[in-house]
Every structure is written in C-alpha cells, then in structure tokens.
C-alpha cells in the first residue's frame, strides 16, 4: 500500500514537473517584437490614438472572432503585424483578432488567397495589391463598404492619397469615383514609390557626380543618370551602373517618364505603341544593350547591389530593411526626370478589403479602419518598409526620421503631387493579369534583344487590346 502511494506520488511529481516546464516555455515571438533600433517609437508617430468608431449598426452580442491577413516581406514585419493585432484586439470591443501572415516560398500570397476565397475559407479582412481590386470587386469577392463608411463618424476618403482612393471608390455601375460614388472597396494599407538606392562608395570611386546634389540642383535627368551609370560601369566588368528587377514597375517608369503610358487616358485600351512609350522603352533598352550599364535584364539585381557591385539600384521603399544591412555607404535619390519633365514614378499601394462572405461586416470595417490609423501605420513605417497611406503632414514628418537612408525625402518627392506619380491600379474595363501576361514577356523580348522596339510597337497593342474585351 505504501509502495502504491509512493508510486502515485512519483507519478504526480513527474506530471507536475513536466507541466511546470511546459508552462514556463517562452512566449511566442510575436509578443516580443523588438522596436526598430533607430526609429522613433511607434507611439511617437502622429496620433490618431483612439480606436475608430464602428459603424452605427450594433455589433453582434458577445465576442466575434475576425481573421485578418496581410503579406509581410520578412519576419520583422510578421512580428510587427502580430503585435499590432494584439494591440487592436484589446482596443476593439467585442472582437477577437487572429492575424495570419500570408505567403511562403512555395505558396504565392495571391494564389493561396484566391484558392481560399474560392473555397470560402478566406479571412474576414485581407490585403490585396491595388492591381487586383477590380478583379475581386467585379466578381463579388469583396464587400462594398460604402454604406458602412457613410454611417461612420469622422470617416473621410480624402484622408488618404487621392490616387489609390480613386480606384478604391470606383463604382463600375456609374463609372464614377469619389466619396459619393457609392463604392468603397477598402482602405490603402500603405503607399510606396521607386527611388534609386545609391552605392556612394562606387560613385565616389568612379569620380561621378553625386546624384543627390544633381537632384537638388534640378539637373538630375536621363543624361545625368546615364553619365553616372557609365562612369561606375567602367570600374570593372563585374560592376554595374544600374539594376532593376524584371517586372512592369521598372519598365513603366521609363515609359511614363518619356510621357507615355501603358493605357489610354480612360484605361480602356493599350497605349504602348505611342511614340512616347516607345521612346521610353528605347532608352531603357539602351541601358541593357547599347550602353551596357545595367545588370542583365531578368537577373535579380538586389543581391548584386547588396554585394556592392551596383551603383544605382531601382527599387521601392520595401527594399530599405534589406539594404540597411549592407556595409558600404549608401543613400537614395529620386528617379531622374525624362523628356516629359517628370520622373514618371509610380504610386504603389495595396488595400485592406473585407471578404464579401464575412459574417461580421461591421466589425470587419472597424478593423480595416483600425489597421489604417496613423498610429498603426506609423508603427509599421518605423520598420522602414513603407510609407503611411494617410495624407498627413505629421505622418510625413515622422517618416523622414525613419532613417537610414538619410535622404528619405527622395521617397516623399516621388509621391508628391508635383511629381505627378501614376497610381498603380486595376483595370476596370479589362484584366490586369492578362495585360501583364501579354505585355511583360514582349517588353522582356525587347530588353533582351530578341525583338526590336519597332517590331514591338507594330504588334503589341493588337495583342494587348484583347484583354479589354474580357
């Protein structure tokens, strides 16, 4: 009997020790997200500290669980989004939040999301790139939040950049945008734009002029850019003057900068065969072929830049966290002005949208607002990956302090109204993915020398115009 007791005691002791060990396990990393080292604390960001008001429709009784998802670029962003989710969980009454970072090396974010939307298992609130908004909206996959917004005190579409909001408030029924269009497909998570990341060590070694100074003097144009690129390229066969990834963004910059565009004014037809568009493409091709200053088109230039072998690397604000780890002296400068007198930059954006099948639209709308407050955006912007989507001088002032790079103003110049950036956007009268599928390889054919600019101009719109009938 005593032995039985002894063994039962041992049993309990063993169980208790394991239980204590398990309880003492470290908390998930999400709650321990470190603050960005040299960025101001998130709470120093411009204040809109109070949680947004839910639409006046009363929320459902009891706690409702909302799942939300956005595409993070790295673990640091996952940590910040997890932390924000925890904070908003306490701020939003009656709502329990579950944050799901989306996308892996083997599962593309958008593909995974589309599959879940089709299967009816997508989260209540999710992020999609600006180019996907029309596709999701016209298929009825995302909720039109215009009615909810109309009932929300203090909500104003003009608080956000006009470019993204023009697309997010576009009502295909009346072909109209704006606060009174009767459509609101979501709110922009953030905005971004291109800049040139500079390897100042290479530029100084080549004796090339400092692009930042040229920009200040108003002399930063295609010729000056090419001059710097050529001088740095001359440093060695493995040193490149310029590098950009192979997608529509960098291609579009040169076309826009020359005064061209992908589409006609009302985005109902292809405009890649205009003389201006072809001029932009010709200049871009010269970087790869005639002048041979660029990292070969199609090769990822980011590792080459980070290895210290590219003088000017064109990328968005999202590349900043990665570039911060390099060991050479670096900074950024705005894109050079082209024949049109502007840099032809893009205003990139993506939006938080509400799943059309959500059981809790009012709570989901409150979450979308909470995710786009200046406070929340400030916390994420402190990481350096993006720019707040709210038009607010305080937000911009805070953004400039999120350094390095020292010349953060270059990004702000890129999105300034004076620069006339083209807002990334969907095709309401066609299919953006189809347009990209047709034009992307064709542009690549030009830049890799497989076809000529003239042949491209003669055929591209015959093929690309078909996507506007879909």
């Amino acid at each position: 009997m005593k032995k039985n007791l002894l063994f039962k005691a041992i049993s309990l002791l063993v169980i208790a020790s394991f239980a204590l060990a398990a309880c003492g396990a470290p908390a998930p990393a999400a709650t321990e997200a470190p603050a960005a080292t040299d960025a101001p604390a998130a709470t120093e960001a411009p204040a809109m500290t109070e949680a947004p008001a839910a639409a006046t429709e009363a929320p459902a009784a009891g706690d409702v669980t909302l799942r939300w998802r956005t595409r993070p670029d790295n673990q640091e962003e996952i940590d910040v989004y997890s932390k924000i989710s925890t904070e908003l969980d306490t701020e939003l009454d009656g709502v329990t939040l579950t944050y799901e970072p989306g996308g892996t090396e083997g599962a593309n974010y958008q593909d995974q999301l589309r599959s879940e939307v089709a299967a009816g298992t997508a989260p209540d609130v999710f992020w999609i790139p600006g180019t996907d908004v029309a596709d999701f909206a016209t298929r009825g996959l995302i909720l039109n939040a215009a009615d909810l917004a109309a009932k929300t005190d203090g909500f104003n579409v003009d608080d956000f950049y006009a470019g993204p909001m023009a697309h997010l408030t576009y009502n295909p029924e009346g072909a109209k945008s704006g606060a009174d269009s009767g459509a609101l497909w979501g709110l922009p998570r953030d905005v971004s734009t291109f800049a040139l990341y500079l390897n100042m060590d290479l530029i100084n070694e080549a004796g090339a002029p400092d692009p930042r100074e040229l920009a200040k003097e108003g002399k930063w144009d295609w010729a000056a850019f090419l001059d710097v690129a050529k001088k740095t390229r001359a440093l060695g066969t493995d040193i490149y003057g310029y590098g950009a990834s192979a997608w529509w963004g960098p291609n579009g910059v040169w076309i826009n900068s020359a005064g061209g565009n992908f589409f006609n004014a009302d985005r109902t037809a292809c405009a890649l065969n205009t003389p201006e568009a072809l001029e932009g493409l010709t200049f871009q091709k010269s970087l790869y072929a005639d002048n041979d200053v660029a990292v070969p088109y199609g090769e990822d230039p980011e590792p080459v830049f980070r290895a210290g072998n590219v003088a000017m690397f064109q990328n968005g604000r999202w590349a900043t966290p990665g570039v911060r780890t390099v060991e050479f002296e670096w900074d950024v400068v705005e894109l050079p002005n082209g024949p049109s007198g502007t840099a032809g930059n893009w205003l990139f954006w993506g939006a938080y949208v509400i799943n059309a099948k959500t059981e809790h639209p009012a709570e989901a709308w409150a979450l979308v607002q909470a995710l786009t407050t200046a406070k929340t955006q400030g916390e994420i912007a402190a990481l350096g990956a993006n720019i707040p989507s709210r038009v607010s001088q305080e937000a911009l002032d805070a953004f400039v302090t999120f350094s390095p790079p020292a010349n953060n103003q270059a990004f702000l110049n890129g999105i300034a109204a004076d620069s006339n950036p083209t807002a990334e956007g969907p095709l309401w009268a066609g299919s953006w993915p189809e347009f990209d599928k047709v034009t992307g390889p064709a542009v690549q054919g030009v830049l890799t020398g497989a076809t000529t600019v003239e042949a491209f101009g003669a055929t591209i719109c015959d093929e690309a115009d078909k996507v506007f009938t879909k």
Partner: protein
Amino acid sequence: MTTYLQTDSRTELLLRISIVWRGIFALLAAGGAISLWTGTLLPAAPLWQKVLVTAALVIASIFSAIGAVLISRRNHGGRMISLTLDYLSFVICAVLALNTGEVFVGIDALAETFTSGIPYLGIVLLGYFLGVMDEYFPQKKQDAETSLKAASRWVMLGGFVLFLFQVGALKGILYFLGKLTQPIGIASVIGMIIFAFSLWLIGQAKTAEALHVKTNHEQILSGWLFLSPNLLGFLIFFAGPLVLSFYFSFTDSDAINTPNWIGFANYAKILNIQFAFLSSPTQLAKEVVDIKIYDEVGRFVIGNSGILFAAADKFFWIALRNTLTFVLFAVPLSVIPALVLSNVLNSKLPGMKFFRSLYFMPSIAAVVGISLVWQWLYNATIGYINYFITLGIEFWNNLFNLAIIDPKIQWVSDEKTALFAVVFIAAWQTMGFNTVLFLAGLQNIPGELYEAATVDGAGAWDKFWAITLPMLAPTTFYVVSTTTIQAMQVFEQVFILMNPPEGPNNSTITLVLYLYRSGFQNFEQGYASAIAWVLFIVIFGLTLVQFQRQRKSSIYES
C-alpha cells in the same frame, strides 16, 4: 418452390423491421431526388451537383426497394444491398457531422497548437518507460512491479489528458458539440444512429442465417469492407475530382460562381489554330490572319517567304512546345546517365552503398529548397556556376595566352538557356531515383548469362549491349514511361526557379504552369480543366506509343 427455414420470432421481427426500413429508405431517397428539382432541397446547388445527387438518390432508392423484396424472399442479396447502402449512408452522415462540427478546420487549428502540447507527450513517453522497467525487477518483487505498472498507466493517462487540455482539445470538443446542435448536425447524428442500428440489425448472425448467407458471401463482404476506406478515398479524392474536372472543362467555371455549360468552347479555343503563308519573312501577322482572334505563335521561314502559325490561345501552344522540348531533353538526361551510373554502382567495390545513397539524395530533397539553391547557383552575376566558368577561362587564358571571352551565361534570364537550366535540375533530381530502379533491374539479371558470355569470349561492351540492355528492357520501359509522364507535368522547378515563372519571353511556360495560372490566378477553372484533359490526352498518347514499341521490341514478349 421456395422453401424457408424456420426462424425464431425475434429474428422474424428483425427481418420485418429491415424490410420496412428498406421501404422507408427507398421512399425517402426518391422523395429527396424529387425535392431537389422542386427547389425544397439544396435550392442554390449548381446543376452538376443536383444531377449527381439525384443520380445517387435514385440508385439508392431503386436498390433499397430491391433489397426489401429480396429480404422478404429470404435472399442473401437483400442483406448485401442493405449492408452496403447503410454503410455508405453511415459514412456520409459521419462526414456530414464532422464537417458540421468543423472538425476538418479544427485539425488545422490543432496543427498550430500541437507543439505547445509536446512536453506533455513527453510525460506519456516517460510513463511508457516506467512500464517497461518491470523487466528489470527481480521475480520476487511482484508488488513493486505491479505498482510500477499502475504508476506507468497513471502517468501516461495524466500526460495524455494534460496534452489534450494544452492543445485545446477540450475547447475543441465543446465547440464541436456546439456546432452539432445546428439542424444539419442533429440530422446527421440521428442518421448515424439509425444507419448504425440498421447495420447491427441486418448484421446479426441469426438474420444472416435466415437469409441463407454462406461463408463465401461473408468473405466477399469482409473483403469489400476492408477495401472500403481505400476505395472511398479513391472515389472521393481521385475519381470524383477527375469526373468533376471533365465536367468543368465544358463550363465557364470560375470556381466561385455557378458554372454555365458552354459545350466544347474551351476545347475549341485551345485547338483554334491557323496557318498562313507569308510573302516575306518579316510580314506582320495582322496582314495574314484575323488579329482580333489569333496571335502569332511562331513562323517558319523558307527562303524569302514563310508560314505563320497563329492560335487563338498562343500561350497554350507555347506551353506545349516548351513542355515537349523539356521532355525531349529531360528524359534522356534522366535515364541514360542513370543507366551508366547503375552499372558502375552495381559493382562490388568498397563504398558503393555510400554512393548509392549519395546519388539518391536529390530525389528525396524538397523541390522548393533545391530550386532556391539552384537559383543562387545560376545567378549570372554572382552565382557559383559562372564564377567557376570565369576562373576556368582565366586559367586557360593565362596558361596558353589565349583570348577566350567569358560568356557570362544568363542561365535563367536568357530565353535560349532558361528551359535548359530547368532541364538540368530536373535531370539531376530524377537521375538518382532512376539509378535505384536500374540497380534493382540489374540485380535480377541471372549471373549465368554473363558467365556464358565470358566463356564465349564476349567483352564488357558486348555483355552490356547483348545481355544487360535487352534484359533490362522492362525496367527501362518503366523508367522511361514514368520519367516521361513526370516530365510532362513539370511545374515546381519552374514555379520556384523562374521569376516570373513564365521565364524570359515565355520560354519556360509549361502546360501545368499554364493551367495553374489559368485556374488559380485568372479564375478560369473551366478552361484550366480543358487544358488538363488535353494534357492527359497528350500523355496518354505518348505512353501508348511507348507501350506499343515495348511490345514490338521486348525479348520477353518474343
């Protein structure tokens, strides 16, 4: 004249209940089929679902009625039908109940919390070790041994309960039960009880005896019962989707809205091609074909003229061309080196087992990881492959004072090399597996044949050509067939390695990649299904040709 065995009153009652139940089942199934079309049942279901469910209900109704008649005639066929229908219905109700209780979603949730419960599984393990310690006790200490076993049980039980608690199983069970209170959940549970009762009722030994069931009938039933999990899995997860995709290929399904029947439109679009003569090699396509319908796929230049190949869906034809090119190179590169390697590894030299394992490793490595590593290796500017090429060229230039120009090959960004970069990875990855298959084939060749050849004065090459190759024919056929089928479905390497996956100027777009893009990126599930079926026909055709060639050439056949 039919003779009936005498049955006791209880069995008689059970049989009568079974007959009545079969009748009710038949009526309910028929009623369900009718209500599908009157809008009472599943009013929002698409046509294909209604047709499918109707067919199932009508068949069930007819068989149930037949079952009732057969049971009344004391025919064992009635029992067979009854057991089959009730078993399938029970499974359907169980799946419905699990689905209503969101168990399948809960498994995902469990995967997330599972790690937090692992320490408690350690308790279970520890309990197990406590239990096996009794072997070390002397025979005379029986009391201690018993106590240790008891402690072991308690520790394991306690650990498991704590584990369930930690991973949220308790909350999950309560959630499951809560969800089951919905009407469909209650109906499913009631259905399970009724079908289980009916199974018990007709499964009774005395009932079987009354229905003249023989041993072989029982064996057949047992066989089907054991086969049923696999068979149901096959029907639901393979045959079902296959039939469904065939149906979708005739619709405009976007996977979200109700699909519309469009007949052969998807296939017509795929196969809508046109050839046109060109008056000059540079003549524009829009001058010879209707450019609103067709796009140029390619042109064959003959002197100062040529032939233009245009298609309504040029991407399909480009993908088909790329896929066939891939097969043309990837299959020989995966098979021939494997054959050579297997002959080397078949020798009895020391260390061969190590090398066999080494060559097999790429086959078991994750494709995503491998592709990412190769992405780095292939980088034209800072990749290791070009780095070593540059070193080699510099070495030769310095040694012999040559002026060889470094080609700086753009492996994945040049349309001329991109597909071959993928071919090389695929061949490297498949070669190890094929080597193992050839090794197995080699070890089945009788040694006497080689001994006789040696006596006849045959050399190593003669033996390989006259004995090894013919005797390996079945293995070679299997290896070539499976490698071809695998190569026709190339996807992962392209999807991960290339950015964008279509590659420069669409040089790496393959059929599976294109159907993936159509179905999952462009929401064209109907069209993607049609592509899948065309791909199936192409693979089927190729395999058929291989079969026929194998029959003609095999020494085993002759």
